[in-house]
């Protein structure tokens, strides 16, 4: 007898499909059944041009979570991280954050998004009421603007305004000592670049009033060729240059400006230079570039910081980034707050986090604080130094003074209408 087979889906594949469907719908309940562990969700950027932001954040989080879990977890509950890629798109960041909470049963969020994505996740936190710690967004308005304020969101990140105050006063000191009056700026053409440059020059002029900006360049973000920018700056003949280019943009810029021997002709202040992602990639790192500290294991010069940098390197075979220390600090905050609250409940942790000071390898005095009134990180190590072409890359870093930072930050907030 000839066997005939009717076209269409076979019984076997129908059953398989139904099984897969049932698994998909059952997954959240299965997940909730294992309530002994606490899930922490983390949307971040793991693909595309700034994937390193996400991967180095993830590495640092996992490094710290292992320690917390080994020490008993969050109030006795082992942490399970659920980390997903948002591709750097805000709508994806919002979607992923919601899914992490609603479907995967995450009780806390670490928001490893930059720029617009962090504001999208912030809105999700506002909507769902879940505790959220931002770990990558440096935009000052995220916490400084009272309109953004919600009781369940915190920011464990350095801030643009802090960097500008410290950078401005440091640069003004050098400007006065060396008589640098004619300045040029070269920064990426988007909100971070414009704001940071504006604030830097504001404080530079405040501390050194006779400084004059004679040339401004605004290359596009991720621009591959900087020839026209470099020649424009060289023609203007400034005595000093400020730039807040970062990552691949900064390294391409330096490689291209090196061809024109730019770094012999002026003092260069590049706030984002002292990060291993930039330091180790530049082909011929010029001597004497002034930079803020992003992450460098020799500043603060404590054995704890050096040990942390080495442990990270030993585990992942690369140096940590600025994003790494911020994410690690967020996990440290969670662990300490959960211990104090004796609970892993988001609301209770949020209460304790307000104004909490913890011991931390990245603190200016060995501690960092989550400021109570605007839920943002203060007291972290911040300073400026000059580069050398080999390790330790920035041998001496001059620490910024937090007292001055607080005073000028309060003034800045007032001028923006935030207080």
């Amino acid at each position: 007898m000839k066997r005939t087979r009717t076209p269409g889906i076979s019984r076997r594949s129908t059953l398989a499909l139904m099984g897969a469907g049932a698994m998909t719908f059952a997954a959240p309940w299965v997940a909730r059944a294992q309530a002994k562990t606490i899930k922490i969700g983390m949307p971040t950027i793991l693909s595309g041009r700034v994937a390193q932001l996400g991967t180095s954040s993830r590495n640092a989080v996992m490094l710290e979570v292992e320690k917390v879990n080994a020490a008993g977890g969050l109030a006795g509950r082992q942490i399970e991280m659920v980390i997903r890629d948002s591709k750097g798109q805000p709508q994806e960041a919002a979607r992923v954050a919601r899914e992490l909470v609603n479907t995967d049963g995450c009780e806390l969020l670490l928001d490893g998004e930059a720029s617009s994505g962090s504001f999208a996740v912030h809105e999700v936190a506002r909507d769902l009421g879940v505790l959220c710690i931002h770990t990558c967004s440096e935009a000052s308005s995220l916490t400084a603007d009272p309109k953004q304020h919600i009781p369940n969101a915190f920011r464990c990140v350095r801030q643009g305004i802090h960097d500008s105050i410290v950078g401005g006063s440091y640069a003004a000191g050098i400007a006065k000592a060396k008589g640098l009056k004619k300045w040029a700026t070269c920064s990426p053409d988007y909100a971070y670049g414009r704001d940071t440059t504006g604030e830097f020059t504001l404080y530079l002029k405040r501390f050194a009033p006779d400084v004059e900006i004679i040339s401004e360049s605004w290359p596009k973000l991720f621009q591959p060729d900087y020839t026209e920018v470099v020649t424009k700056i060289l023609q203007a003949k400034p005595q000093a240059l400020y730039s807040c280019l970062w990552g691949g943009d900064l390294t391409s810029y330096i490689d291209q400006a090196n061809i024109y021997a730019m770094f012999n002709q002026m003092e260069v202040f590049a706030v984002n230079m002292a990060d291993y992602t930039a330091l180790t990639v530049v082909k011929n790192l010029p001597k004497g570039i002034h930079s803020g500290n992003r992450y460098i294991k020799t500043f603060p010069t404590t054995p704890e910081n050096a040990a942390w940098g080495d442990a990270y390197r030993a585990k992942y075979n690369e140096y940590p980034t600025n994003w790494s220390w911020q994410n690690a600090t967020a996990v440290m905050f969670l662990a300490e707050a959960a211990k104090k609250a004796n609970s892993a409940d988001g609301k209770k942790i949020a209460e304790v986090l307000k104004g909490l000071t913890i011991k931390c390898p990245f603190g200016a005095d060995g501690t960092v604080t989550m400021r109570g009134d605007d839920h943002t990180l203060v007291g972290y190590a911040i300073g400026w130094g000059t580069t050398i072409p080999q390790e330790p890359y920035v041998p001496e870093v001059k620490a910024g003074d937090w007292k001055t930072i607080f005073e000028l930050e309060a003034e800045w907030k007032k001028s923006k209408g935030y207080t």
Partner: protein
Amino acid sequence: MTDLEAGRTERLLPVRGGVALQRYRDVLIALVAFVVLASLPLFTGSKALLDFVIRCSAYGLFATSLNLLVGYTGLTSFGHGMFFGLGAYGFGLIMQKLAVPIPVAFIATLTITAVVAAVIGAICVRLKEIYFAFVTLAFQMLIHSTILSWASFTGGDQGLRGGIPRPAFLGIDLSNHVHLYVTSCALLVLGLLAMRQIAQSPFGYTLRMIRDNAARASFLGIDVWRAKLTVFVLAALFAAMGGMVMALFVSGAYPEFAYWTISGEGIFINMLGGVSTFLGPMVGTVLFLLLNDTVTRFTEYHGIVLGVVILFFALGLRKGLLDFVAEWAARRRETGEGR
């Protein structure tokens, strides 16, 4: 014109009398679809599923409106995402700055979009094929750059911050998840129904004629430029509706909504679902979002997976999923008749 399109045109030729019947059928299907979707929250507590449908509404409106241009008129726009972004920003800004009731902001956004689309369309629809595609892309980048650089108004690259206020209207409170869900479903169903009516109207058939042979249409006395402009503006309105749903979902508007990648996703969705059936883009949207959501759960190399899928559709099936199904059904029918 491809064989597929030729065959379809024959099939779709309306019989006079049957048109009204078909319209009632469409309305009935829309009603049933809305009732089924709107009753979903009664059966499931899954917020993720509701989120999924809300996103399907936003992308579905956007992709189907793009199909009015690509599939029905033969205008391959690479810049359709600008209207998605315009809808999101227009609505968000009006709600944040003017604090008007939501329906007023909705209508105002559509009005603004219509004006902008008319101006851009008047320039673009004169151009053919690749030139049309490129100029729409250029306008999209212009709008995207404007959003980025006008930071004092639009928030620049950080987007509209602080959330979009949603005062209740007519008993509908859009800050309530279920209310937002039902409203999105209603907008989706109404939008699709309206687009279906456009596609099946004499105007819709004029568009198909322009797509197949613009010169002949012109000789028959049709003002090709005006018809193209009209459909360009109409498509922009539905794309803006999609943008508004997305703005409500994320409670903000971000420059990425007006970036070329959104237009690219629209075209990708159309390729997945198929451009020769009305519901092709909607099927494409569901497929695309399902793929996106499941693949990104498991790997950060989602680009490779999505790339392979699009290759499969482009080189393997050589058409979208619904095109394939429609053809397969037609073949089955034919062999059935021949037996």
